[in-house]
C-alpha cells in the first residue's frame, strides 16, 4: 500500500512538472526574427568584437532589430556586406577594390640591437612590463616581445619566431585590430596588405637618442625623403613612414641608402 502511494505521488509529481514545463514552453516561447535566423549562420563566427558588439550573434541581432550599420564586420569584408544587404533588402555601396589592412609590428629591435634599461623579472605580459617605466627597453616605443598580442588574437595569426620577433601570418589576419588595442607601446599598427615596403620603427625621438638606444631605429635623417623624393617616404617628428598610394619608384634605392636599413621589403 505504502509503495503504491509513493509510486503514485512521484508519478503525479513528475507528470505535473512535465506537463507544466511543456505548457510553459509553449506559452513563453519567443519568436525569433526570420532575418536573424538567416544572418547568424553567415557571420564569420570568430567573435572578435571589432563591430562594437559582444559577438557575431549580438551583431546579427543588432542588424536585424536595431538597424545597425551593415559594414562593421572587418573579418567578413565586402563579401559579407553584400550578403547581409541581400538579406536585409538594402543596397549598400561596396568598393570591391578596397584595400585590406593587416597588423604589423613596427619594430625590428631585439636583445642584440636594443639596449635595456633594467632587468625585468615579472609576469610575461607586455602591459604588466609597461607599467614599470614603460618596459625594460631603453626605447619606450619599441616592441616588448612578451606576446600580449599573441594571446588576444582570435585566429592565432600572431606567433613568435625563433629570434623572439613577433611575426604575423597575414593570410590569417582578419583585421580585427585586437592586437593594436592591447599593445601598450602602440608598436602594433595596421598597414595595407599590398604595401611593398614598410618602415619598421616606432620611435619619435630625435636621431641622437635613437642611436644611443637602438641600432635599428629611424633617426629621422630624411635621406629617403630629400634624396629620393619619389620614394613615397615622409618624415614626421623624426620618424619616417611609407605610403604605397603616392608615387614610389625610388623606394628600392631609398631602402638601400637608409643608414640604419629599416626600410624593409615585405
Amino acid at each position, binding site marked *: 500500500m505504502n509503495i503504491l502511494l509513493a509510486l503514485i*505521488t*512521484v508519478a503525479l509529481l*513528475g507528470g505535473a*512538472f512535465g506537463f*507544466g*514545463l511543456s505548457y*510553459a514552453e509553449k506559452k513563453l516561447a*519567443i519568436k525569433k526574427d526570420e532575418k536573424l535566423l538567416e544572418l547568424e549562420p553567415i557571420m564569420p563566427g570568430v567573435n572578435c568584437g571589432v563591430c562594437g558588439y559582444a559577438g557575431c550573434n549580438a551583431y546579427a541581432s543588432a542588424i536585424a532589430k536595431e538597424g545597425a550599420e551593415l559594414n562593421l564586420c572587418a573579418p567578413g569584408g565586402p563579401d559579407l556586406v553584400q550578403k547581409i544587404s541581400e538579406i536585409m533588402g538594402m543596397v549598400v555601396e561596396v568598393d570591391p577594390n578596397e584595400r585590406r589592412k593587416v597588423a604589423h609590428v613596427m619594430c625590428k629591435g631585439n636583445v642584440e640591437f636594443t639596449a635595456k634599461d633594467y632587468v625585468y623579472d615579472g609576469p610575461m*605580459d607586455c602591459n*604588466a612590463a609597461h607599467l614599470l617605466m614603460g618596459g625594460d627597453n631603453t626605447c619606450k616605443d619599441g616592441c616588448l616581445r612578451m606576446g600580449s598580442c599573441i594571446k588576444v588574437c582570435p585566429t592565432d595569426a600572431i606567433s613568435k619566431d625563433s629570434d623572439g620577433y613577433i611575426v604575423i601570418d597575414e593570410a590569417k589576419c582578419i583585421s580585427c585590430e585586437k592586437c593594436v588595442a592591447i599593445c601598450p607601446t602602440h608598436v602594433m599598427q595596421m598597414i595595407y596588405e599590398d604595401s611593398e615596403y614598410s618602415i619598421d620603427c616606432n620611435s619619435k625621438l630625435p636621431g641622437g637618442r635613437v642611436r644611443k638606444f637602438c641600432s635599428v631605429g629611424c633617426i629621422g635623417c630624411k635621406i629617403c625623403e630629400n634624396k629620393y623624393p619619389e620614394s613615397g617616404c615622409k618624415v614626421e617628428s623624426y620618424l619616417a613612414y611609407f605610403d604605397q598610394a603616392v608615387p614610389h619608384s625610388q623606394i628600392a634605392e631609398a631602402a638601400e641608402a637608409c643608414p640604419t636599413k629599416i626600410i624593409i621589403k615585405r
Partner: protein
Amino acid sequence: MSYIAILLTFIFINNFILVQFLGLCPFIGVSKNSANAIGMGASVTFVTTVASVVTWAIYYFLLVPMSLQYLQTLTFILVIASLVQLLEMVIRKISPALYQALGIYLPLITTNCAVLGIAIINITNGYNVMEAFTAGFAAGAGFTLAIVLMSNIREKLDLMPVRRAFRGMPIAFISAGIMALSFMAFDKSLLTNLHLV
C-alpha cells in the same frame, strides 16, 4: 537560531564550497575570470533561495502528510530540475537582459549538488520557511564569495611564473585547498562569542 546566526553559519562557518565541499564543479569550472564568476554566483544564489522555499513547501505539505519522507532526495531533484527550467523560460520571456547575463549558467545549476544540499540541510535542521529562505540565500552568498575570491586568485595566477607541471588546474586546486584551510578559522565558537546562540 536567529537569522543573523544562519547568515553567518552558511556564509562563513559552513561555507558550501570551502568547508562542506559542495558544488565544486562550477567552483573550478567557472572561476577562470571574475565576470563569469559573479554571474555564476548570482545565478546560484537565486536558485538556492527559490529552491529552499519550494522544497520546504513540498516536504511539509506533500511528503509529511503522506509520511513519504524517505522520498525527499528523489522529489527534491525533480523539483529543482523543473524549477530551474521554468525559471529559465520565465527569465527569457520577462527580462532578456538578465537572461543574457545568467542564461548559460542556469542549466548548469539544475544538477548542482549545492542546491540539493541546501534543500536537504534545511529539512535536517528543522528550519521554518523564513529560516529556510535565509539559509538558501546565505548558502548562495557563501558560494558567490568563494567563487569570486577564487576567480580573482586565478586571474592573478595566470600572469605568475608557475612551474609548468602546476600550471592551470593543479595550482588552482592547491589555491582552493589553502583557501579552505583559511576558512577553518571560522567555527561555531564565533556564534557563541557574538552571543547569537
